């Protein structure tokens, strides 16, 4: 994991100098991480993702996670990850706007 942080930061930095490239990479990574985190949250309407037996219902039932092998701790972990990804996406979008 230490090497992961080393290689990820340096691989982003290796093409530094092109306008908006670094922040674009960071934005893509942050968006993917945030999407992965959000899929673990029990916020998704079941009808949208075809829970068995409820495909035909049009009423939005209570939300559930897409990936359902999570636990409460897993939700907390991904919430913490989302807390970090949210402002990062915001900052990256703002910086990318000026670097576009």
């Amino acid at each position, binding site marked *: 994991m230490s090497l992961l942080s080393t290689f990820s930061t340096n691989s982003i930095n290796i093409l530094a100098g092109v306008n908006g490239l670094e922040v674009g990479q960071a934005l893509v990574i942050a968006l993917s991480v945030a999407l992965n985190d959000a899929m673990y949250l029990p916020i998704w309407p079941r009808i949208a993702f075809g829970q068995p037996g409820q495909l035909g219902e049009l009423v939005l039932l209570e939300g559930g996670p897409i990936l359902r092998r999570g636990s409460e701790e897993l939700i907390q972990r991904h919430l913490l990850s989302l807390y970090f990804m949210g*402002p990062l996406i915001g900052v990256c979008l703002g910086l990318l706007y000026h670097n576009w």
Partner: protein
Amino acid sequence: MDVEADHLLPCPLISQDAIEIVPAPAPNPFSPPDALVSLLPHPELSSSTRQSALLPLPWPGSHVHSPGVTDTPGGGLGGNDAPGGLVYGFPVNLNEDDYLAETTGANSLIGTGAETRRIDSGRQTGGAISRGAVGGPGSITASGGILPSVSRRPTDSLTRALSISHLKMGGHHVDTLSSLSLAYQQPHTPSSSSRARHHTHDYYPHYPGGTFSEISRYKMGTVTPPPSDRWMSEETTPLVRAVRVGPDGVIREEDVDEGDEEHEDEDEEVEPYSLDEGSIESGEVVTESTKKQFKSRSNDDLNDTRQSKTRSVGWHPLRLTEEIPPAPASPTYLEPPRGFEGDTDLATTAWTNTASASTRVRKPSGPALNAQQEKERLEELWEIAASIVPPMPMGVGGEASDAKSVTTTTTSLPPKPLDRTIPAWLPTLLIPLALSLILHPVLYAASSSPTLRVPSLVVRFLTTLPPPTFPALEANLGFSIIALLGMLYAVPWMGDAFIAKDLKGRDLLKGPHGAVIPECMGLPGAAMYIGLMIMFIPFPFSKYFEDSINEWSGAGVETLKMEQAVGRRTFPHQELALYLSSILSLLIATLLGFLDDVFDIRWRHKLPIPIIASIPLLMVYYAEGGLTTVIMPIGARWLVGKTVNLGELATPHMCCANRPH
């Protein structure tokens, strides 16, 4: 030199003229004065009669390249009589004769002091008038020309200064030009009125190193853009001067005094581009003095030593003005202006060259050069001049370079930079959204707390809303919107400060003369991110505060112990530790990124820094029993199974740490 450079330099026609290079200030959408100016219509574009005489106005990154374009007959300038006609060309006016004349001191290359012509672009002429008026007759800033009496310094030729500057700046030709332009500008002195000085760079009282952006800001008689302009459009190619020279090489003032010039002057007093910052601020005074300057214009006034006169030859994007610098009115002129004491840079050299050349016949200071050395220097100058103007696609004829096609040369302009103005609906929409997203969980938690008093109106409003499922995540979304908005506005605000510290680069994707943009703008982003993350800390743990408050209120005071104090028992310290260690790692990474931008750290030094930065994060992760199991992808499960527990492999430096269990 090749043929291409020959027609780029219409030297004989502008040989004896003083050249001033005025950078093209770019309208910055974030600066209110320029935004105002950009909204006003161009006064000449509406009249179709002079469309043929117009060259494109500069915008960021634009450069006018039309060598040898003579004015059309019947145009606003009215001169088609070659060689007396107007010639637009690049202002490098060095040919061999001039160079030899200059080195022998027979003919000053850059102005004789009696006639120093200042030709600048039309949009800056108003600035010239207002600056001169603000300065007053007794100040240095009033002249806009040269200081004739300052001749104490050892002189060097301008051509040498040009060569040296070329070498010193590493071939940065715009900087080379700046040493030329500096010869004709006065530094900003405190004798100007404070209101006018407010819009110039007061925090740079000197010429700090003589880069083009810094020097050009001090040019008297030109519009000094607000500081936020610098990051958008600095160091574009300077404008091409228009020079009107008689057949004998002397400027013909009686031609420019005739006829329609009076109307042009009246137009100019109301034309919007004369409203630079100074005239906007001290409007009435500037207008009056401007009128006075125009009315007092006559040939007799050439001997007036108190006032510099500006003659304009009609309205034109490339306006020809002549400024006759005043004679020194007091011995204070002998003092070199502030910012020049003691420094021996090129700016001083060029400036003193001008001053000395205007007063006496200058002798070569160094040892006399032989013919071979002079030829080498001359060739070097030609190379500089040719490389200043990059070869551009010429007209419709492709590589046609004969005289006829030169006159119909079209200017090839780099792509216009994108309009990055932030639409007004964005903050008006996003700021209330962000605040409501943040305040909703806060107010909800506060209303459910037995100790906090929330107004009943708020409570009643909150009951109409669904309770927040993930209150901290909702607040986090609000913080994300704030981060986006803050970054949108922080980059234009802070870009100027970064450029001032030389953290800038040229936008190479916008052509060879792309706008200079600030670098290292990730630093304000990272600072804002870390600040927001720190402000976000209470939100994920607010429910624990709430629980503790309930415990506190339910227990009697005498039964309280330290373990039952606020947050002591149920507060998840591990989560907070993970959060804080993440911020610590982020801070180290920010420091690494900033140092890399500033110092260009080598890779062998860059590599270990993230490893060190990840130690606090991994330590906390390990201490709270973080999982190190990796789920294998479906195609690779035959290899090692469905999951692999990396274990100590994931955190190798934890091998020597004591296991907590």
